[in-house]
C-alpha cells in the first residue's frame, strides 16, 4: 500500500505529535507514504469563503500532483479530507468549472484528470488495509479502555460527497476501536461539532460546544476520546481547560487523535506519541492499559 501523503497544516506544526504517530503506524503496517511537500493548504473551509475558484484550483493542483505520481491521497485530517472530497465532487459535476480549473493549472504545468481518490487514514485502515489484518498486528490491545468516538463534521457530512460512513449512525470508529481491543462508549455528541470553526469568532459558544459533548462522553463512562481530525483534537484537548470553565466541574478527559490510538495499540511507547504536549494528561487512561 502506497499513498501520496497530505498531513494537513496543523499536523505539521501545532500538532506535530500526530505527524509522528502517523509515521509510526504506517511504518509498522508497511504502508508507504510519499509526502506532498509542495501541496498547499486545503483551505479548511475558510479559503473558499473569499475565493472559491482559487480554492478549487489550489486543491486540484494537489490532486494533480498525486495523479502524476500514480497514487491516491492519504490524509490524517477530517477537514482536509472533507474539503477535498467536496471539491472533487464539485469538479466532477460541473464540467465548465473543471475546464476553467485545468486552464489555470496548465499555467503551472499541471493537469487534473479527475481520477485521484482521497482517503482518510480511517478509511484506508478499514477498506484498504483491513480490520482483520489490523487486529492481527495489535501488540498492546486496548483491553479495559472505554473509548468515546468523536467523529465531528467533515468526516461524515455531506454523505453524498464522502461516500463512506452513514452520518446518521456511523460505525467506522467503533469497528476500529473493537479491532484494537477496546470498547466503545456511545454518547450524545459523537457526530456533532467541536466548535473549532468558530473558535476565534465566537469563543464562548465554541467552548460551550466542547464542554457539553466532552462532559457527555465522560458521563457515558469513557476513559478517553478519539477523533480523526487534528482540528477537533486542538479544540477538544488544547482548549478543554478553557471550555470546562463553562461547566460546573472539571472535565479532564484526554483526547487522542486516531493515529495516536492506533499507534498505542501497535506497541508504540507513550513517550513517543507526544502525550506530554497534550493539555489533558493521559496518565490515568494509560494506567488502565497496564497488564
Amino acid at each position, binding site marked *: 500500500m502506497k499513498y501520496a501523503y497530505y498531513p494537513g497544516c496543523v499536523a505539521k506544526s501545532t500538532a506535530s505529535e500526530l505527524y509522528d504517530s502517523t509515521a509510526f503506524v504506517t511504518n509498522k503496517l508497511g504502508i508507504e507514504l510519499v509526502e506532498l511537500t509542495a501541496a498547499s493548504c486545503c483551505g479548511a473551509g475558510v479559503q473558499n469563503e*473569499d*475565493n472559491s475558484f482559487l480554492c478549487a484550483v489550489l486543491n486540484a493542483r494537489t490532486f494533480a500532483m498525486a495523479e502524476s505520481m500514480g497514487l491516491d491521497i492519504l490524509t490524517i485530517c477530517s477537514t482536509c479530507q472533507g474539503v477535498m472530497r467536496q471539491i472533487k465532487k464539485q469538479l466532477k459535476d460541473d464540467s465548465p468549472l473543471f475546464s476553467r480549473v485545468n486552464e489555470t493549472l496548465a499555467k*503551472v504545468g499541471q493537469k487534473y484528470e479527475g481520477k485521484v481518490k482521497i482517503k482518510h487514514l480511517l478509511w484506508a485502515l478499514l477498506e484498504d488495509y483491513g480490520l482483520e489484518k489490523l487486529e492481527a498486528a495489535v501488540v498492546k490491545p486496548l483491553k479495559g479502555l472505554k473509548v468515546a468516538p468523536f467523529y465531528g463534521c467533515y468526516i461524515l*457530512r455531506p454523505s453524498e460527497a464522502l461516500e463512506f460512513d452513514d452520518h446518521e449512525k456511523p460505525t467506522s470508529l467503533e469497528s476500529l476501536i473493537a479491532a484494537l481491543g477496546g470498547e466503545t462508549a456511545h454518547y450524545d455528541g459523537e457526530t456533532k461539532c467541536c466548535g473549532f470553526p468558530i473558535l476565534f469568532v465566537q469563543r464562548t459558544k465554541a467552548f460551550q460546544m466542547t464542554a457539553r459533548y466532552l462532559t457527555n462522553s465522560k458521563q457515558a463512562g469513557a476513559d478517553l476520546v478519539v477523533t480523526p481530525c487534528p482540528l477537533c483534537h486542538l479544540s477538544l484537548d488544547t482548549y478543554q481547560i478553557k471550555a470546562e470553565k463553562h461547566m460546573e466541574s472539571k472535565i479532564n478527559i484526554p483526547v487522542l487523535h486516531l493515529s495516536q490510538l492506533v499507534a498505542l495499540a501497535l506497541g508504540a511507547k507513550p513517550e513517543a506519541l507526544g502525550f506530554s504536549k497534550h493539555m489533558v494528561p493521559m496518565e490515568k487512561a494509560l494506567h488502565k492499559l497496564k497488564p
Partner: protein
Amino acid sequence: METQEAVFRILRFNPEKDEKPQYTVFHVSIDEQMTVLDALEKIKHEQDPTLTFRRSCRSGICGSCTMKINGLAKLACKTRASLEVAKHEEVLVEPMENMPTIRDLVVDMGEFWNEINRGKPWLMPDETVTSDITRENLLITAQQQVSSKLADCIMCGACFADCISRVFDKNFTGPASLAKVYRFVADPRDKGGDERISPLVGMGLWSCTHCYMCWSQCPRDVRPVAAISELRTQSVAKGDSSQGARHVKVFMDSIYKTGALNEAALYLETLRLGVLKDLDLIVRLGLKGKAPSFFKKAIPQIDEVRLIYRLAGEGKR
C-alpha cells in the same frame, strides 16, 4: 407486502396536564412502504387520539410534519418506517430541537419565522422595470439556477432544528434565514445590494460552524451552508471588518505567503488584543513545546501558489 411489528417510542408532553415530557411506546404493524406519518396517523386513529402532530400534504412539499426521528429532524411523511427500524431497531419520535414544545410533536416555530423575517424575504425589484406590466424581466435559466434551488425551501425547519450553532447561539439567525437572503442576493432581479449584506454580520453570519447538518437534513437539498459561504464572500468583498472577515483575510494571506497556515499569525491577527484572554494557555503551550512558531518557511514551489492566486484574481499581497 410483508409486514412487521415495529416499536414507536414517542415523546409526549401536554403542558396542560403533564409536569414533564415522557415517552409512550406504541406497537404498530408496518409494511415496507409505510411512512412514519402513516404510522402516527394509524396510532392516532386506532390507539391514542391524543397523539398530536402537524401534517397536511403527506407528500413532502408543505413542510408541516417535520419532527426528530431517531435523533435527526426529518419530514415524517418522507421517512420510511421500515428503513428506520432496519437501522435503529425502533422508531424514536420526538419534537424538533431548538424550538419549544407546544404539545407532543408540535413545536412553536415562532423564532424560526422571526429569523426568516429578519432577512426581508421578498424581492427588492428595479421599480422602473416592474412599472411596465406588459413585459417580464428577461432571465435565462442559467441566471436563475442558484435562486431556483434555494427557492425549493419549504420552510420545514429541519435545518434550524438541527443547527448545532443555533443550540448555543440564539443570535445566530440560522441556515434557512440566510439561505433565503441568498435566494434574493443571487436573483439578478433583486436590487437589495448592500441593504441585504450589511445586516448579516449582526445576524450571526460568522457563527455558522459549517457542520453540514443543514445540508444533511434538508429534505429539498437546498444546502444552506453553501449559501452562507457565498454570503460571507460577498460580505468580505463589501468591506466586512468583523473578526470573522478578518480571519478569512488572514487565512488567505497566510497561504499566499507560505502555502500553509501560519497558526501563530492567524491567531494573533484575528484575535489581536483578544489573545490576552489566552495568556495562560499560550504560556503552557510554550512550556510543552507545542506553541507554533511565528516564522514559517514557505513550501517548495510557492511561486506556483502565488501565480495561481494572481490568476484567480487575487493580485499581489
